[in-house]
C-alpha cells in the first residue's frame, strides 16, 4: 500500500468528479458536500461509462451513460442494477492535501 498526494483540496469543486491517472489506472475522485473525498475506479461495470462525469447526490454517483447508481462508499451498484466498482481510501491531511492510498501493484508506472 502506498500513499499518493493527488492534489490540493481546493482543486476539487464540490460534487464534480475529477479524473486521476496513475500509470494505467484511472480513478474518479469526488468531493462530497460534507467535504469528504471519495475515489473509485473510473469505469461503470455496465458499459464502462466515465463515472467522473456523473451527477453526484449525497454519497452516490449516477453513471452519465445509462444512469446506473453507484454508492461511493462501498462501490456497490444500487438496485435494480447490480455490480460493483473498486474503491480506494482517501483522506485530506492537515495541509489540505488529498491523499490516496493505493496498492502500487495495480499500476504500471514506468
Amino acid at each position: 500500500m502506498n500513499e499518493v498526494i493527488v492534489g490540493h483540496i481546493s482543486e476539487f469543486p464540490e460534487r464534480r468528479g475529477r479524473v486521476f491517472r496513475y500509470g494505467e489506472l484511472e480513478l474518479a475522485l469526488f468531493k462530497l458536500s460534507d467535504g469528504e473525498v471519495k475515489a473509485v475506479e473510473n469505469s461503470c461495470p455496465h458499459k464502462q461509462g466515465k463515472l467522473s462525469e456523473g451527477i453526484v447526490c449525497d454519497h452516490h454517483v449516477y453513471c452519465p451513460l445509462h444512469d446506473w447508481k453507484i454508492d461511493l462508499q462501498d462501490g456497490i451498484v444500487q438496485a435494480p442494477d447490480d455490480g460493483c466498482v473498486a474503491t480506494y481510501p482517501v483522506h485530506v491531511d492537515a495541509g489540505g492535501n488529498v491523499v490516496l492510498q493505493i496498492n502500487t501493484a495495480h499500476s504500471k508506472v514506468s
Partner: protein
Amino acid sequence: MKRKLVMIGNGMAGVSFVEQLLKLNPHRYEVTIIGAEPHPNYNRIMLSSVLAGDASMQDIILNDWDWYRDNDITLHYGQAAERIDAVNQLVTTDKGIEVKYDELVLATGSLPFMLPLPGADKEGVIAFRDIKDCETMIDASKNYRKAVVIGGGLLGLEAARGLVNLKMDVSVVHIFDCLMERQLDPTASKLLQGELESQGMNFLLEKQSDSIIGKKRVAGLKFKDGTHVDADLIVMAVGIKPNVQLAKDCGIEVNRGIVVNDYLQTNIPNIYAVGECAEHRGIAYGLVAPLYEQGAILAKKLAGVESEGYQGSVVSTKLKVSGVNVFSAGRFTDEPGTQALRIQDGLDGVYKKVVFEKGKVVGAVLFGDTSDSSRLFSLIRSGEDFSGREKEVLFGPSGGGGKPASTTDLVMAMSGDEIVCGCNGVTKDTITEAIMEKGCVSIAEIKACTKASGGCGGCKPLVEAILTTTLGADNVAAVKEGICGCTAMSRDEVVDAITRMRLTTTKEVMHVLEWNNPEGCSKCRPALNYYLGMAFPEEHEDELESRFVNERNHANIQKDGTFSVVPRIYGGVTTPEDLKKIAVVAEKYHVPLVKITGGQRIDLLGVKKEDLPGMWKDLDMPSGYAYGKALRTVKTCVGSTFCRFGTQDSIKMGIDLEKKFERLNTPHKVKLAVSGCPRNCAEATIKDLGVVAIDGGWELYIAGNGGTRVRAADLLVKVKTEEEVLDWTGAYLQYYRETANFGERTSEWAQRIGLDTIKQALESKEDRDGYNSRIDKTLDLMKDPWQQIIENDELSRAFDALIAPADPQAASSGRE
C-alpha cells in the same frame, strides 16, 4: 415422476394459464407447448399499437425465449398440432413430432372470420390477427395509398387507426348504421364516428360487400347496391370464430366453441380448453380479461387447489381510438324494464350513460371521459342497490356535481383473485402483495414488480385506488407520483413553490419542499436547475454540479468517454476561412472523425476531454450547443438568394433567428428551420418551430418532430414580415419554456396541453410582448460558454486530469 402437461397454443390465454400454474405448483408438471406462430407469447391486444408505430414488435413480447428456458418448458414453435389421439394420449404436429400427455390443454384461440366474397383470394386481402398481418400492412403502406377495412367493430377500427397512422387513405365499411354497435349505444357511436372522421377516416355505413375486384392484386370492393370503392389493400375485420377444428376431429364436443364445464373440462377426460376457443355456458369470450379468469381457474384445477369454478364474466370494453376514450360494460342498451341516466356535454365532447334495472347498475357507456369506468364496472359486478338514489352513481351523494362514491370503496369490495390488469393478467391479490410485502409505494414500482398497468395502461386508476386503499388515506400524498422518486410534487407544484417562495438554489428547493433524498437524484437535480433558471434568470446561479455531463462540459459525451465538438454555423452558411480553420484544428488535435450533421453543421468527434478548451480557443467560433437542452440549429434552404423557386430570403431569416435565440436554455432541445417556399426543402414541418415562406409572407409551424415519433407540425399563424416571425417565435419559445416539463419536447408538450391552448396564449400582441420581454431578459444574460471557459483558468482546469506526481518511492515500488 412429473406428469406430462401439453398445451396446444402459445397465445396470451394459454401462457397466462401456465404462468399461474407454475406459481401455484411449480414442480408437478413437465410442460410442453406447441405453437403455430414463429414467435414467443406476445400481447395481441397491442398489435394496433405496433401498427400505429407506438410500440415495436419487441415491445409487445410478454414472455421471451428465456422465460420458456428458465421454466423448463419445451416449446415446439412454428408448427401446428395436427392430430390428437385421445385413446393413447398423444399429440402429433405437422412436422411429425409426437408428444405424449397426461393432461392436455387446448388453447387454440380463434381464427379471423373471412367473408367468402368472390375475389377474397387476391393479393392484398388480409385479416388483422397476428404479427404477420401487421407486417403486411406496414409493407403495403409503403407502396400503396388506398386501404379499405371491412368491419366497423373494435378490431376494424383499431386496424383503421393503424393504417391512418401509416398515412394511408382509409375507408371503413360497415354493414350496420352504427360503429361498434356491440359495445356502444347509437349516441356514443355517432360521437365516435364524428371524431374519427375529423381525424381523416372515411366511413361507408350500411354497405354490404359483394365482391372484390382486381386482377392479381385487389383493385377495389363492390357493394350489393352497385356502388364500389377503390382499394389497394383490404383488411377483413368482421369478427373471429373459435378455432375448434382439431378438437372436433378427435371427437370433443364442439358447439360454437369447444364446450367446457365450470372447471374448463371438455367431455373427454384429461382434456381441457381455455381462452377464445372455449365455450362456457354458451359464451365464447373474445376479450382478454375473461380468458385470464378462466386460466386462473384451470391453473387451480390442475395444481390441485380447490376453487368454486368459473362462473362466467361480465365483460367491459375500454379502448382509445385515436385519442378518444371509450368504455362500455354490461347491458347498456335500453331494454324494457331498464332506466337510463344520461349526461351529454357537447362542449367537452363527453357522454355518459348508466343503465339501471331495479335500482342496480347493469350497464354503462362512457365517451370522451372514462375516468368513472373502473368504478362503474365494479358497481355492475357488485350489484349494489341504488334504488331511489340512482343519480348518486354519476353525481355523488349531494345529487349534483359533488364527488361520486370513491373508487376506493369499490376496490375494497373486489375479491382478491379478480383481475385488475387485463393485459398482463394481474390480480388484486398480486398487487396487494407487491405493496405489503415488497414495499411498492407508487404505480411505477407496482408496474416494475408485477407488470400491472404495463400494457395499455387502462387499469391505472384502479391500481392507484388499490395502492391508496392498501396504504391508507394518510399516505395518499406520499404515494402520489412526483417529478421523480425524491418527491410527490408535480412539475407545476414545484415551479409554483419556486416562484411563490422565491427559492433560488436546488438545495433550497429540496430542503423547503422536503425531498426524500437530501441531494436529490440525477432526474430532479437538472430539472430543478432548469426551473430555477427559467423562473429567476438573474438571481439563479447556474449549478454545474446539477447539469448533465454534456451541458457541464459543453460537449457531447460519446460511448468511449471522448467528446464531440460542433461549432455554431449560423443558418448552415459557412465561409472558406471558417472551413480552413476547422480543418486546421481537426488536424492539430488528430480528430478521428469529421462529419456533416443533420443540422447543417460540422461535427468533430472523438476529442479527448483535456483537449476541449484548446480546440475551442483555436476554433474561435461560438458553441453550437449541439449537446444541450437548448436551441440547436436553424436549418435553412437557399431561398430567394439563389433558388429560382424561392419566394423569400430564408437564409437571412434563419440566421436572424439563430443569432437572436442562440444559447437559450429550454426544457428539451429545440430545432428550427426556415424554408424559402412551400416545397419546404429545409423540412420545416418536422421541427419544433418551422418557418415556411409563402408569396408575401411566412407561415409558422409548431411542435413538429422528426425523431422517435415523427409528428408533422401544426400551423400556428401566417404573418407578413420578418419582425413578426421573430415576435411570434420569441413568444412561442418563452411560453414553452414556462409551461413544459423538463425533458419534454414541444411535440409532446403541445399534445399534452393542446394546440388551442397555445394559440390562445399567444393570440394577443400584449401577451406576446410579455413573453418576449422575459425571453429577451434571459437572452441578454447568456454568454458564449466556450469563450467563458477559455478565459477562466479555474473553469478550464476542470477539464484536465490529475496526474500522479513524480514520487520516487511510488515510481520505484510500482515498477514490476
